[in-house]
């Protein structure tokens, strides 16, 4: 009898220990990092002082600060170019990162500004190794739910987003195929030119 209780305790203790040891150092950090940033974005969007079309530039400026902090555009760019990156000179790379960021900003900013109190839920964090994580969230609108996953990387003690998966489509993968196609038949300069045009036209 005594023995059995002891055994139970032993098992209990070791289970607890195992649980303790298995908690990775940064557990919860990436999730709260995205959640905080998204909440900061929502605060700006809901700010009554920033309503109306006249406040758009101010709003944009505020949002820019937040997402610069949230995204790792270098990681994003390199991952989309992969080995094509080596075909670019350092100056071209600089320009590419800059242009690519502008393209993304132009398209997604308008979408973000359309926000009208949809509910956003963060519900899952998956650690991938020690320095990467995937955070799953969904945006719940009246007619549908859109799953959005953030892939994050730990750099200098900070979790930054390097890929966004919207409705099961990874943006990095998607741009990668596009850039590949363009670079398979063209030069980096041509790609940059396409991007320059894209930034100018809207």
């Amino acid at each position, binding site marked *: 009898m005594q023995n059995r209780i002891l055994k139970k305790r032993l098992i209990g203790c070791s289970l607890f220990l195992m649980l303790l040891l298995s908690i990775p150092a940064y557990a919860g950090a990436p999730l709260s990092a995205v959640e905080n940033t998204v909440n900061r974005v929502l605060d700006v969007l809901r700010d009554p002082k920033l309503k109306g079309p006249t406040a758009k530039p101010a709003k944009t400026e505020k949002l820019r600060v937040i997402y610069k902090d949230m995204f790792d555009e*270098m990681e994003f760019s390199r991952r989309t170019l*992969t080995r*094509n990156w080596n075909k670019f000179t350092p100056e071209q790379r600089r320009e590419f990162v800059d242009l690519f960021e502008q393209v993304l900003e*132009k398209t997604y900013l308008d979408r973000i500004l*359309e926000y009208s109190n949809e509910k956003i839920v963060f519900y899952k964090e998956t650690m991938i190794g020690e*320095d990467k994580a995937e955070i799953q969230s969904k945006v719940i609108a*009246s007619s*549908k739910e859109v799953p959005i996953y953030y892939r994050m990387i730990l750099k200098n003690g900070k979790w930054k987003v390097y890929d966004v998966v919207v409705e099961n489509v*990874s943006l990095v993968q998607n741009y990668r195929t*596009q850039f590949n196609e363009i670079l398979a038949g063209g030069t980096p300069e041509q790609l940059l030119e396409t991007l320059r045009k894209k930034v100018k036209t809207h």
Partner: protein
Amino acid sequence: MKVNLFILVLVIFFFAAVGFPGCPAPDAVCARLPEMGNGQVIGDGQWGRGDRLWAMGDGKSQDPVHAESPSAGEDVPARKDMKPSGRSQDAFQDEYKDEGQDYDDEPFADERVTIADPIEPFNRLMHRFNDRLYFWLLKPVAEGYKEAVPEPARISVKNFYYHLLFPIRFVNCVLQADLTGAGSEAGRFAINTVWGVGGLLDPSSNQGIELPKQNADFGQTLGLYGVGHGFYIVWPFLGPSSPRDSVDIAGEYVLDPLSYFTPWYTSLGKRPLKMINNASLSLGDYEAVIEAAIDPYIAIRNGYIQYRMKEVQARRDRSLFFRNRKNAAPEAADPPPAN
């Protein structure tokens, strides 16, 4: 009824003729990829594993990431000696290295799906046609419709159309050996028919009942069985698809209850309303995709196959039968480097 069957047979015959290269069993490996377009055969292309797609046919749209790191795998320890990111300053100088497994997203490697596109010129034409159709016709009409009809009504219409296609979802849940899913769909159908005014409302999704929608279709079922996409095809009006996924066009016709009561041409009339209604609920989505894209055609093609692959994966995880067979299928060979 007879006519329906006849059409189904015709369609199947069509695909058989156009190309469902003969790959009998799910796990069977085609020795060689059938050559398509200007395609050189790469690796030993396989039909295996649902959406572990074909190796590329046209050579240029390959995803070089396949080749990024052939030695991928046990990389967690290797990652530790990844450069601590003082990178941001001199990152522009840094070369991209294949060997350093820096950019090797092993857990997401499945995403590097590719699809053969031997009829790209035709597809691009259809893409442009659909694009014009959206901007010139569908969008203006949907905007007017949106003004005229309040959102709850539009959601009801959407629910109704969704409700009608219950047989497809049910049959496919069964075919995919997802019995919980089939049960859930049957429950949804019963509840929404009775309490949801013939499917106009969706009480099954409400709290307390919470029967999740199962978006099962024939394309996924075939994917689960090991049939690959084949190649990319853009249908006029219907958009991105593949021979495999096109089976649903036929399936939708055969299993749509309305098609039994009404002459075939009414389904032509039904589709525009469905399209307009759905468009009115997702105005801006397509524009965002197009605007974000550098080459919209490629962006949509890649988006489509990524989306379908994840769907098949998700369905496979639910399946009683196929869940554990995930790794039983032979690995598709990674095509060689693109550059």
